[in-house]
């Protein structure tokens, strides 16, 4: 039962009062931004990256993780009460959740969402703890060729699932890779793309890039597309689900957890797709599918469980392979690297307190979320009344000061302006900044392993198809792209016409 003793070690770290406080702060902030439309986990984590320099590794990772899964929770509140998904992952909860609210059963919907999420979060956390050791043992045997092929497959999978088509997806990732190459080459020490600027020798600062790409560009497009509809909130009603609700929802929660846990691991699928898939599954197997859309409790329970399970299992590839499957996970990976921790199969042994502390804190965080969400719902809903022009002014100030404090030089802030422009251009060109970030993070990893594999094989490219695991990854990546490319032609046409 080594597993239990490790989990015990994790609990010890997570229950340390300082870490507990950061966990609470993380989930509170996460819930708040989950409720607020226009401020999501990506922006928030990007904004807090500069601050995490000053914190111990455990505290800052626990804080950032709390924001991430807290936002998945908070998003459901606004979906149900005001038919306004705070996060994309909760969009599907609107369908039946808001119908329930209109029927005066918002309380029951919220309670089922919270309890279902808690259950799913618990299962997700356990899965990380259980899948960790065996998966790390497999990954430990990966050589350079396998790693290069894995990164290749992961990038292609995410690119294929991005809206806007596979060409733009791959292109965005490649652009990110180019920017990731800036700085001195690890193997030869040559300065690449530094243009004689001393500040660029260590590469582009990840936090500056993330803030510029996500916060600045996001504010601009939010301001331009603000529709200031008066928000009307439904009454919450009693929080107690009826016996019938419970009978209907627990199997839905179980199925949703399964769907979410599975899709969360896949690069590119993520929380939004898992909640959507879980909803479709429920509708597909329901005896009376016509109830869906009219306030079926399963339509709330399953997707909410799914997105929370996915938010937890998304950590599996990130922590154990060092391969983030989504932009938020790329930011988390960046946060680890800021603290000099390289996630990967060795992380569980080399940074055991950090790994298990994070796992345990996620379970505690999920418990906090139930406590925070249910009794305090009225308070969260009031956040919706914060006007956007107060919010963006604050976000902007926070971004600038945070970035400035990293180096105490104005250079970083000029860089912020640059990446703000770049982020805007990417968005305007329909290129996903999320894929850009993934390319930025994974590019150097790919390069190092690719070059190493090539020198192991004495310059023979066949190494990537001769080794079985590597071959599987390469084929997987190509298959996903081929699949996406065929449907891309169709999708591309649709997008032009209904845009």
């Amino acid at each position, binding site marked *: 039962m080594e597993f239990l003793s490790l989990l015990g070690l994790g609990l010890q770290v997570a229950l340390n009062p300082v870490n507990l406080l950061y966990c609470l702060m993380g989930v509170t902030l996460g819930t708040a931004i989950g409720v607020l439309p226009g401020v999501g986990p990506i922006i928030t984590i990007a904004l807090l990256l500069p601050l995490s320099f000053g914190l111990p590794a455990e505290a800052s990772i626990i804080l950032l993780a709390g924001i991430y899964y807290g936002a998945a929770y908070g998003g459901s509140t606004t979906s149900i009460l005001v038919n306004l998904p705070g996060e994309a992952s909760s969009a599907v909860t609107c369908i039946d959740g808001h119908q329930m609210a209109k029927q005066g059963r918002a309380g029951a919907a919220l309670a089922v969402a919270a309890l279902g999420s808690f259950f799913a979060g618990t299962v997700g956390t356990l899965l990380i703890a259980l899948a960790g050791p065996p998966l790390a043992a497999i990954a430990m045997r990966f050589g350079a060729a396998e790693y290069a092929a894995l990164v290749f497959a992961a990038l292609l999978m995410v690119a294929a699932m991005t809206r806007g088509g596979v060409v733009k997806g791959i292109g965005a990732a490649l652009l990110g890779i180019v920017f990731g190459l800036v700085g001195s080459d690890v193997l030869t020490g040559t300065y690449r793309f530094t243009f004689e600027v001393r500040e660029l020798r260590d590469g582009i600062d990840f936090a500056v890039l993330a803030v510029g790409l996500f916060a600045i560009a996001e504010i601009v497009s939010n301001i331009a597309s603000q529709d200031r509809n008066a928000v009307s909130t439904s009454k919450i009603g009693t929080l107690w689900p009826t016996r019938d609700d419970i009978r209907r929802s627990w199997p839905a929660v179980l199925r949703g957890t399964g769907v979410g846990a599975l899709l969360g691991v896949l690069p590119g699928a993520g929380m939004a797709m898992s909640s959507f898939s879980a909803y479709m599954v429920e509708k597909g197997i329901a005896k009376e599918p016509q109830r869906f859309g009219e306030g079926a409790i399963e339509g709330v329970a399953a997707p909410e469980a799914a997105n929370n399970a996915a938010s937890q299992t998304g950590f599996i590839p990130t922590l154990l392979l060092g391969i983030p499957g989504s932009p938020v996970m790329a930011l988390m990976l960046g946060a680890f690297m800021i603290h000099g921790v390289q996630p990967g199969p060795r992380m569980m042994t080399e940074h055991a307190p950090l790994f298990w502390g994070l796992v345990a804190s996620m379970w505690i965080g999920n418990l906090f979320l139930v406590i925070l969400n249910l009794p305090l719902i009225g308070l969260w809903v009031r956040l919706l009344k914060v006007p956007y022009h*107060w919010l963006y002014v604050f976000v902007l100030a926070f971004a600038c000061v945070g970035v400035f404090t990293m180096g105490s030089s104005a250079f970083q802030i000029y860089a912020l302006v640059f990446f703000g422009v770049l982020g805007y251009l990417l968005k305007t060109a329909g290129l996903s900044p999320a894929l850009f970030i993934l390319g930025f993070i994974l590019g150097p990893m790919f390069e190092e392993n690719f070059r190493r594999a090539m020198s192991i094989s004495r310059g023979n490219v066949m190494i990537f198809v001769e080794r079985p695991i590597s071959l599987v990854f390469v084929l997987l990546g190509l298959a996903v792209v081929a699949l996406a490319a065929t449907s891309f032609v169709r999708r591309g046409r649709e997008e032009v016409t209904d845009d």
Partner: protein
Amino acid sequence: MSDDSRRRAVVSSDMLAAVLFLAIGAASVLLGWSYGLGSTSQLGAGAMPVIVGCALIALGAAQLVPALGALRGAGTSSAAFQRGELRPLMLILGAVFAFALLIAPLGLVPALIVQIAIAWYAQDGGKRWEMFGAMAAVTGIIILIFKYGLGLPLRLLPAGF
């Protein structure tokens, strides 16, 4: 946006993507070449930039053909740049730029006040008096978080105050 302007958009978003791919791809190939390609068994610092750059150029070309076709009227395409975004973009970037200029010589408080004064006009939602409230509130919260909460050494006011 009218139907007409949509069809004849000079810079469609597909076109912009193609231009970005081609420009950055070409730069990556040209600069990468000078870093040395090495040999296949000992790839040099320039190998990866050249490979990625070539891939970008290929994608750019693939993206450019339909985009040009759309320009000639063979299909529809949506304009990349929207008028409504220009003002917020310039004002938000201007606000960040002003902060960068002022933070070192003048300190945190003046830099934040100027930043907020510029950024406020990016959206025409807020009233003038509200702006002063936002300045006080945001500056106060930022000082509390960064200076007192995190204990970072930030100079608040110009030297001499």
